[in-house]
């Protein structure tokens, strides 16, 4: 994660903080925000690489229609980060190419 990609937080109303792990690093996010918002705040870029050419991507639409925000969230690969709210203790990693199939805890 690079600080120079991080989105800035404006003065906000009181919100509880939740601790999550992004690419092995512990960060704080605001309760009620999406994983996509949290990783952009953290400056993560790219957030996935494509299964076709391996090129990097990051959240594009933030409303669930582009599928470029797919990440591995709590062991579940290819999860839409812009449609998933953060939870205390969540573990998030970059989605690299095609997903694993046996990794998910079903």
């Amino acid at each position, binding site marked *: 994660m690079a600080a120079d990609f991080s989105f800035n937080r404006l003065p906000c109303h009181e919100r509880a903080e939740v601790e999550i792990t992004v690419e092995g690093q512990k960060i704080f996010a605001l309760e009620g925000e999406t994983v996509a918002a949290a990783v952009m705040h953290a400056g993560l870029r790219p957030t996935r690489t494509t*299964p076709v050419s391996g090129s990097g991507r990051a959240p594009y639409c933030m409303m669930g229609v582009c599928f470029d925000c797919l990440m591995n969230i709590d062991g*579940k690969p*290819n999860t839409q980060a812009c449609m998933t709210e953060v939870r205390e203790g969540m573990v998030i990693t970059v989605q690299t*190419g*095609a*997903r*694993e*199939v*046996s990794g*998910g805890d*079903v």
Partner: protein
Amino acid sequence: MTESVRLNRGSSDVAVIGGGLVGLCIALGIQRQGQQVTVYDEGDIALRASRGNFGLVWVQGKGDNLPAYTRITRLSAKLWGGLAEDLTQHTGIDIQLQQRGGLFVCLSESELNSRQQMLEKMAAEHPQGYPFDVLDLQQLRELIPEIGPEVAGATWGPEDGHVNPLYLLRALVARFESLGGKLVNAGQVSNIIPKKSQFVLQSEQGEFSCNKVVLTAGLGNKSLGPMVGIDAPVFPNRGQVLIAERVKPFLNYPTGHVRQTVEGTVQCGDSKEDVGFDTGTTTDVLAQIAHRATTMFPLLKDVNLIRSWGALRIMTPDGNPVYQQSEQYPGAYLVTCHSGVTLAAAHAGPIADWIATGIADPAIDLEKFHGSRFQL
């Protein structure tokens, strides 16, 4: 080279009506013999089994009621490697053919037993040999470690395989055109008028003439056949198919219900439903398909589905192909089958040769596929 011919007549040696897998294979084979072929096909939206199928090149169990069908299926499986090579070499399109054997996974002992009995009966009808194997769960697990614990076992067919049916279609178009064949998306051919030594085809976009006409219009053959004196008792049978997102490779062999494509997507199918011309999907059938697939491979449970579709198989009363020349109008032929992927190599080879030259490969027992068998 695509033409949108408007009201001006075009003519060719051979007209093939229907640009699905069957039509394009036949057209390619005839064009290769040096005759000028034109394929007439519909537009973007049409009933097309060739765009909705499962992509199996499948031998095991085919022809359990007609040994000649078993023979042509195995012949086609054998010729498939050559077809794939020719297509890839000349078009640069990798159609992803793999023939490493295939599995039919059974969820219960009784399902496995009845399958074993069917294959044993078929083997008895083929004294030269009919290879297959029956695997219990233990043996199956050695082949596919990811197999689910509730599976009873599987039958193994060493000649089975799979292909990307859409790239196959694309490669067939490209290869056919590279040999000088013509593809005309002129909408439905609505009428065929047999003339003295010719046939005239009528469509929205004009009239076309040809010396020979081959009907490969899938379900459309039912109405086209009688125009050239051939009864085509084809009817639709719906199959619903699911496709899940790309995952890293986990399945080395196609199975009758689940296969992983080269891209990594997982295809699950398929139902057999008698619902007329409805190509829709229904939640309960899709749920059953998903249930079977996840029982076979529990690790698929958290994999996301991307698409589903319904497509219509082109069935005949006994499920076997029809290859037939019109007695009334000898230049007219009808070709239809319900396994057009598997039979692609036979169609592009010996069947096309028969139509082009009039000489039938004795290995094929052509008379067994004549439609007159339904008039008994």
